[in-house]
């Protein structure tokens, strides 16, 4: 394992120290727990939007804490969900009196810890709702959507939730619009090489020089197939075939596309992938309204990328386009 680290068990704290120092104008740390909030949280009279999860996915989650997106974020160890107290304090910090919406990925640890924080918050009289995000088509078959992992589609959900809350939406409205985005979003990922959790020291999987892990998760979870290397265009075609039929996306749909680097894939390859996605969608007469290419939800230094397609309606489109100002995303 070659990494720029000191004691692996201090890495998340050291990262957070650096992150807080760089972005002190936008975010602050909460006391006693490893959670952050936008500097002006709670915003009175606004629904609070909270997320969180394991570290190692940067810019997710903390990079999207700020105006127009997340009010507070609970920070876990690498690939490990944050404890209930961190989630609970994040909810309290986000609570501006109009309720708090928690968005979380569908991972056992996140579900348990956020549920406990929701129970604690409810006992405090805070109105709390949760939406569990499930966009990864590779992680469970169609018909079992609620068993799927939440992956890079989360970026769209955070953006929409934050914008809806900023626009004065009620807790129920914010929840409804995120559920709508989640229901209309599909992602699939592929990897060429694994990542290594520093505290563990060995890679999450091993691939031969001519192999790809198809359907891989953001933590290096095994995919649905181990396939031979293919050209970029063939890889994208295979991924798109799977995504398009799953929702399905059809002629005339308006969509947002996210091409998300999983860690060490150069941007040059991500933009080349977008080119192929666009040419497929052009052929299918599916209209790209919003496009995002870069790193949004990584898995440490994994080489790979994911494609997310999300069917838009006018409200969702306008919420995506609403302003946001966070450490890692500004529009």
């Amino acid at each position: 394992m070659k990494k720029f680290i000191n004691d692996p068990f201090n890495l998340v704290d050291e990262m957070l120290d650096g992150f807080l120092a760089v972005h002190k104008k936008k975010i602050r740390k909460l006391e006693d727990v490893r959670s952050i909030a936008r500097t002006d949280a709670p915003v009175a009279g606004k629904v609070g939007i909270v997320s969180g999860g394991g570290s190692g996915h940067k810019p997710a989650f903390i990079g999207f804490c700020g105006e127009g997106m997340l009010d507070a974020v609970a920070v876990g160890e690498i690939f490990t969900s944050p404890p209930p107290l961190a989630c609970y304090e994040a909810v309290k910090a986000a609570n501006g009196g109009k309720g708090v919406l928690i968005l979380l990925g569908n991972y056992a640890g996140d579900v348990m810890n956020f549920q406990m924080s929701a129970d604690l918050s409810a006992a405090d009289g805070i109105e709390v709702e949760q939406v569990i995000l499930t966009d990864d088509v590779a992680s469970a078959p169609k018909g079992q959507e609620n068993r799927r992992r939440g992956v890079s589609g989360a970026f769209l959900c955070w953006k929409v939730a934050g914008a809806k809350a900023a626009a004065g939406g009620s807790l129920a409205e914010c929840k409804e619009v995120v559920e709508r985005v989640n229901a209309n979003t599909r992602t699939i990922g592929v990897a060429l090489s694994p990542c290594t959790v520093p505290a563990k020291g060995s890679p999450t999987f091993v691939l031969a020089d001519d192999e790809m892990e198809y359907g891989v998760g953001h933590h290096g979870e095994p995919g649905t197939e181990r396939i031979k290397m293919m050209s970029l265009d063939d890889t994208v075609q295979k991924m798109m075939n799977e995504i398009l039929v799953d929702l399905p996306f059809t002629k005339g749909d308006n969509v947002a596309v996210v091409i998300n680097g999983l860690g060490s894939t150069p941007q040059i390859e991500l933009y080349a992938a977008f080119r192929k996605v666009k040419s497929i969608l052009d052929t299918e007469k599916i209209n790209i309204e919003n496009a995002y290419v870069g790193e949004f939800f990584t898995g440490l230094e994994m080489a790979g990328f994911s494609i997310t397609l999300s069917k838009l309606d006018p409200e969702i489109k306008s919420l995506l386009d609403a302003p946001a100002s966070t450490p890692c995303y500004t529009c």
Partner: protein
Amino acid sequence: MMSESISNKQMYHIVETICDTIEEQQQYLSDLDGELGDGDHGVNMAKCFREVRKKVEPVADKDCGTILKTVGMYVMNSVGGAMGALYGTMFLKLAAECTGKTEVTLDDLARMFTAAENGIRTIGKAQVGDKTLLDTVAPAVASLQKSAAEHKSLTEALAAFEMAAKNGMESTRDLIAKMGRASRLGERTIGHLDAGATSCYFILRSFAHGVEK
């Protein structure tokens, strides 16, 4: 011959035994998790119980409830992950049922573990047979309840408890994972022990072994 209750001193030894065992078994637990999950279970557990050892030392002389609550608060509030929630719940529930006690009887122990099992079921939403640590906990707790009902000696009860936990752990080998990361692998999980069920066996076994010290 063992006395018919567990003293607070013994409870502290139990916690020490847990810490020692997890440290020894770190690699084995990670290897098991590597087969079905993300391979970090040993590291997670070892890091957790290394810290537990430090946290619990200052309260070594306190009552059983304080000792177990100290473990539970740390695990619940600092560890994170499914393990933090599940084992945090387990230790906090154990603690809540022996608040203030410097001696814990078999009846107490049965009540404590019944509460712990319920807590784990509530938070984890797993069923017996889902290939999780519940497959270790449930038969062990049932055995404890039976021993208590039959007024067995503490020694006998703990031996049966350990054996039931071990069988429960072993039972996961033939099961298909229904919860957590491993559940994505479906049938491929057959033939492998569940990592959480195994670490849970080491923890429960430490109750038997720690008392002997």
